């Protein structure tokens, strides 16, 4: 009997780990572009996720712009529609603020401008969180879809052990994987993608090759923002959120990107999946309040046990 419950819990953790993990994976790709490839420390990435959630919320539930799509399609189309909005927002942020503490301006400085980036994005994060509280209020909201309270049942697999597949999470999972694949193909195989990666990898050399590095950075930052926002929109269908939701996820994102290996889109996705898995399995043994604390511990372990990560060298050249 106990075995039955154990099996059911483990199987459900596995399926939840896969579905939520892939959504985390998409979220991490956004930061992977900005932090992993462009090497910009963006403290406000969690707030971009939050903006994606609220964009979807206003398009679908509150503003009803997309309500003609119905409660099944609407939330997911809404999540994807957050992308162009937050892309624009991210590109503007980069143009007016981030570009002044990153890219060509900081090439060759002692810390590659990380100090300035941390401080400026901390400011952006404070403004978006607290400004969000002014605009959106601090009552938790969610994007309503009947799918979030429906599930496919698989099994019983072993005696009574049954796997529950939440439909909202399942659809979100498919959308996330689709978006990740499209993005991966775009970055790896198109001319735009190659220019972005070249500019990110070595801005000075890319300038000499005739790439408009500022523009490439702006687009890449916008993309990174938009991708994370889509993941936010997808999550909005199965969690409730406030303007302060970002902090819980910024740590998850950094864990995923560092774990997956800096500079690799595929790695960032894989890192996000792993963190999602860890989080779901921690739910088996930890009370709910400590699950977030567990994520922080995981993050610390990742950066401590792999101080140079799965990437790069740690020793300075002397």
């Amino acid at each position, binding site marked *: 009997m106990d075995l039955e419950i154990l099996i059911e819990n483990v199987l459900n953790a596995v399926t939840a780990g896969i579905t939520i993990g892939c959504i985390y994976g998409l979220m991490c790709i956004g930061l992977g572009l900005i932090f992993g490839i462009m090497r910009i420390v963006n403290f406000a990435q969690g707030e971009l996720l939050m903006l994606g959630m609220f964009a979807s919320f206003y398009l679908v539930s509150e503003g009803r712009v997309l309500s003609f799509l119905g409660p099944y399609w609407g939330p997911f189309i809404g999540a994807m529609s957050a992308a162009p909005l937050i892309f624009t927002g991210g590109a503007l942020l980069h143009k007016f603020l981030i570009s002044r503490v990153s890219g060509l301006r900081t090439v060759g400085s002692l810390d590659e401008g990380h100090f300035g980036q941390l*401080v400026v994005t901390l400011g952006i*994060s*404070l403004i978006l969180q607290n400004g*969000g509280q002014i605009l959106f209020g601090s009552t938790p909201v969610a994007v309503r879809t009947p799918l979030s309270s429906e599930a496919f049942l698989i099994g019983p697999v072993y005696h009574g052990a049954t796997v529950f597949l939440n439909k909202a999470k399942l659809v979100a999972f498919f959308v996330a994987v689709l978006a990740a694949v499209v993005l991966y193909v775009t970055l790896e195989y198109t001319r735009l993608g190659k220019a972005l990666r070249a500019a990110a990898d070595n801005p000075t050399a890319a300038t000499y090759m005739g790439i408009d590095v500022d523009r490439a950075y702006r687009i890449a930052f916008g993309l990174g923002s938009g991708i994370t926002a889509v993941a936010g929109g997808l999550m909005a269908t199965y969690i409730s959120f406030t*303007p302060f939701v970002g902090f819980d996820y910024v740590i998850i994102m950094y864990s995923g990107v560092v774990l997956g290996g800096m500079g690799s889109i595929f790695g960032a996705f894989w890192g996000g999946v792993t963190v999602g898995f860890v989080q779901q399995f921690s739910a088996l043994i930890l009370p709910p309040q400590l699950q977030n*604390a567990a994520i922080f511990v995981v993050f610390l372990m990742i*950066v401590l046990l792999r101080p140079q990560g799965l990437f790069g060298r740690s020793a300075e050249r*002397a």
Partner: protein
Amino acid sequence: MKQGAGPHLRRNLTVLAVVSVVYLVVAMSVTNSYYQLILTLVPVWALFGVSWNILSGYGGQLSFGHASFFGIGAYAVTLGVVYWSLSPWLGIPLGMVLAGLAAIAIGFPTFRLRGHYFALSMLAYPLAILYVMQYLGFQEVSMPMHRESGLRFMEFSEPRIYTLLAVLLLVGGVAVSLVIENSRFGLALLAIRQNELAAEAAGINARLWKMRSLVVSGMMGAVAGGFYARVLLVVTPDSVFGMLVSAQAVVVTLFGGVASVWGPVIGAAILVPLAETLQAELGTYLPGIQGVVYGIAIIAIMLLSPDGLYWTIGDRWFRRAAPDGIPDLGPDLEPLPPPVRRASTHAAGPLLQVEGLSRAFGGLRAVSDVSFSITEGEILGIIGPNGAGKTTLFNVLNGVLAADEGSARLDGQALLGRKTFEVCRMGVGRTFQVVRSFPRLSVLDNVIVGAYGAGLADREAIAQAVRALHQVGLQDRSGVPAGQLTNKQLRLMELARALAGHPRLLLLDETLAGLGREECDDVLGVLARVRTQGMTICIIEHTMHAMMRLADRFVVLDHGRVLATGLPRAVVEDASVIEAYLGKKWLARRDA
């Protein structure tokens, strides 16, 4: 002691006394209890900023998680009163002890990280504690009232007493910070911030100083937090461990001026009243206005004057005091005695003996089975084409890199396996291929870092640094920030920094790189002079020409291996050396 520190310290303490008296006089005349609260909070946040500044300002270890210590102080005081009727007068010291222990526990793993990884990891601690506090059921803890024994529980009906206490705490914090700023502690932190590897190579134990700064900083943060809890009477995990708390320390300090004790005070005096007033006036309609103000302030200051108001205003309206000349040390400035060889059982052996040293990077054997020795008083030139492993060899010798195999002994004592600063203290000075200076410190302070590294006391260290500057001929530039020196002067300053540690062996990495012909001659002259004073030197160099004049003996490296050893003339004639440098064709033509 930093140069001219005495008068600075006195002047700053005077300013501190005047400012706090004026502040108190103004504060005592305010009767509105809300404004009184703001006047109490200004010094509290200033104190928290001062504490953050010690770690992140002077030491440059950017922490986004200082709320850990603030919260520990706040909960220690509150839970102490609630559960054990512990007086806050004891609760605050208890919080300091706990925060100090937490600082050690946090610092021990986290100082393995640098830069933005350190900053992000520090963020994780208070947030993790926040969730644990919620889990433990301390969502909202209020302090019970003890009207009958108010003094014992730091409970006053007169709000101005809180303002007075807050100012006294801040004065204490500023005084601690001033003492640090004007001591070897402060100089070590500034050096670490500007170039950690150079500080290590100059004998500074960076880990230890960083840990000390975290402990001091954490304890001071706990005082701010504990007192804050006592003033507000209620704590929640979000209000003391939350992100806005950590951000507040960062914002007031960066806004006011980083790495100056006045920075956080100025920042808090401007931003806290502004944010609190806006929150009170507009908070009902615009509930997050406080955070928005802090966000805007920090972005604006970062883009407009990244060092903060104090430095910008100082630069613009008050010309900083002209750089001090060489301090007058009286008549006892004697020339440096030659390095004394410590009594040793290996009296006749070489000073440095390297045997079978190897170091690989993945598949690349950068240094491979290298053996050589250096006798006391000689100049050994290490030459070889690019990528021969010369710098790697130095890095292994002075502990920047670990060796895979082999041994190195300085006067019989094992060098390998020691940390960089330990190697320095054993008597191995080092300069770098790319000069590693502390650009914002004066030339003299740069050199004093080296003297401190050797463990000298203040007065001796200054004297030693002055001597070293005379030795290299830079005495006229001693008050100038290192960032303003020419390449040659930087090379000489780095040499002086190494000399100030009173080394027995100097490892010089391409000291002549990038110098013009005349500059080259000047530096060679200095090196020859240093050598006549009894110094043993091991120098890496590309240009054969200069080396022929300087070195007594050559070791030629190629692809990580020793190609030839011997007298300069013989080495230059050696066929394999010519091949490595000029190629087979050249060799064939010569032989033809």
